[in-house]
């Protein structure tokens, strides 16, 4: 199978959906000729024109609000938010307006839009261009949240997101845009709410989101050499969450580590750990461990930044402790 980058995969997904449905348009800063700073959208304006690949002023609340109104009246905007950190700027339009449109109208209106943005530290971009803020929006009822972990996932999830009648936020890891993966030429979609078991195992479950899936897979490789059989699961979407697959795996292996790049406190790792505790408690041989990003603003200097995110080695170390029984009473 051919291999393409995550960036190309997203580009293909958008192009295919824009060809299929003329109500789909892209809006954001430097999305047209510039194709975004990450060049994910290069070539789209040449095919679809500036009426459907719309460069905006630097005004995130404005173009997000515009997209909500456009979505409510018969189009399918794909909003490009250059950095996930800018989500704070659009919170009212996303969380007070888009997320609540369907509910507040008693089911009569909806806002079928996609917010494409990114996450991920270690790009030496400091505290305002490095955050992983998906937990903030996953907290809000009415928003779906997808977290692609490869080029294949990014394409399939994006196409599903565009066809979804609800507001969907997609977080791409900005460090993965050039990572290649096999992606079929034929069209495919990846349904929301269906986790992907990347590797089956018997001793411990590693649940990872976005780039943390790679971290979990690398950890599983190391653990395998030590005779520890790790199961690796990618939830793909954290809203909706495929709870059954996660719970069943926890019941099977009896030990779980949840790895996610959002801040650890009040985050995705805690949410998933909580659900496993509630529904697989008697099957567990150890506490479910959370591994998120450090609860500090992301520092600039590489000497410090690299300390803030989970690594395969750190996951392996925790896994070993869980296996040896060292962590039954303390994390």
């Amino acid at each position, binding site marked *: 199978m051919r291999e393409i980058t995550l960036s190309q995969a997203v580009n293909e997904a958008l192009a295919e959906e824009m060809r299929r449905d003329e*109500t789909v*348009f892209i809006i954001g800063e430097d999305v047209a000729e510039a194709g975004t700073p990450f060049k994910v959208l290069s070539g789209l304006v040449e095919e679809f024109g500036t*009426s*459907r690949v719309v460069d*905006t*002023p630097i*005004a995130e*609340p*404005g*173009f*997000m*609000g*515009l*997209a*909500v*109104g*456009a*979505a*409510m*009246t*018969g*189009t399918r*905007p794909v909003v490009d938010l250059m950095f996930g950190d800018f989500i704070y700027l659009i919170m*009212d*339009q996303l969380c*007070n*307006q888009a997320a609540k*449109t*369907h*509910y*507040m*109208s*008693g*089911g*009569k*209106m*909806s806002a*079928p839009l996609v917010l494409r943005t990114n996450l991920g530290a270690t790009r030496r971009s400091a505290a305002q261009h490095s955050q992983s803020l998906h937990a903030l929006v996953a907290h809000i*009822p*009415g928003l*779906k949240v997808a977290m692609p972990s490869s080029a294949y996932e990014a394409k399939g999830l994006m196409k599903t997101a565009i066809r*979804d*009648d*609800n507001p969907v936020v997609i977080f791409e890891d900005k460090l993965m845009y050039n990572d290649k993966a096999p992606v079929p030429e034929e069209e495919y979609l990846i349904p929301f709410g269906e986790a992907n078991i990347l590797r089956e195992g018997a001793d411990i479950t590693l649940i990872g989101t976005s780039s943390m899936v790679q971290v979990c897979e690398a950890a599983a490789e190391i653990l395998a050499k030590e005779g520890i059989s790790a199961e690796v699961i990618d939830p793909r979407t954290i809203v*909706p969450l495929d709870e059954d697959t996660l719970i069943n795996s926890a019941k099977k292996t009896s030990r779980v580590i949840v790895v996610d790049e959002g801040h650890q406190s009040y985050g995705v790792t805690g949410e998933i750990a909580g659900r496993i505790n509630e529904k697989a408690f008697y099957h567990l041989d150890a506490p479910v461990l959370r591994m998120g990003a450090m609860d500090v603003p992301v520092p600039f200097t590489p000497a410090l930044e690299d300390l803030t995110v989970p690594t395969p080695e750190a996951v392996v170390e925790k896994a070993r402790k869980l296996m040896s029984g060292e962590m039954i009473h303390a994390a």
Partner: protein
Amino acid sequence: MSPAKTASNTEDYLRMYRQMVRIRTFEDNANQLYLSAKMPGLTHMYSGEEAVAVGICEALKITDKITSTHRGHGHCVAKGAAFKEMFCELLGKEEGYCRGKGGSMHIADQSNGNLGANAIVGGSMGIATGSAFTAKLLGKDDVTVCFFGDGATAQGLMYEVMNMAALWKLPVIYACENNGYSEYTRTDEIAAGSITARAEAFGIEAHQVDGQDVLAVNELTEQLVARARKGEGPFFMELMTYRYHGHHVGDINREYYRSKEEEKDWKENRDPIIKFRGWLVEQGIATEDEIEALNDAVRKDAEEAVTYALEARYPDESEVDMHVFTDVKHALA
């Protein structure tokens, strides 16, 4: 009154009058429901501003869109909503426009092009601009009117979307209802300079109009809507009006921010309904008796709708997790 149309437009004039009376009557009933503790929560009265909503909405087609505000009952009535579904919504009943899930501050009636009230001051400016964007992208000739108050002119979102609307010539009309008060504060204490000049800074043609004169409002809107349909938008209107009640129905002792004399003056000398009624009689369009009969009919409609709504069913408890997502019947099942 400005002599906008000829006397041959009798039906238009009487419909405008009737719509203004319907708004006032709706609000009087809503206020009574609040005062008698029959309505959950609070509500913001539109009384005094009727000529704005009616003058504007009478210039729109059913396919044209509006976005509304927390003070939104007037816009909802003017765009064609029915009393029964409105009172049901205010009382949180199943038959309300939003099945009781929105209430006064989120009332919406998409069947008539009302994209909804909004409880965030200025929160719907993006939505209105996006609605106009849809019309342009899909080649429809719909116009969208964005209602907002003078208080919302302090929100940054307004300037962001006006900039885009002007750059892209979107068919949107920003209608600033300047009622002189930003919640509990005089507008001149929160708004520097001129409000219309702010729109003009983006190259948007802006007009100020007497918001108590329904014919003047309607005449201006007719012109701007026709031009917006031809791609000459966006436009900005500042409508000088007055809010008879407090910021909301519970804001009763308000002399610390405005005097009773001022309120009395607006109610007695600048009331949009009294003014228009006088003009209708003077022009021979309707007699006093006909007007009284019309008022009585509206009053009776409202009373029946209130009675109906008070007795109507609340939504079933099973609805609490419905409509969170379009494709999941019960989000928590």
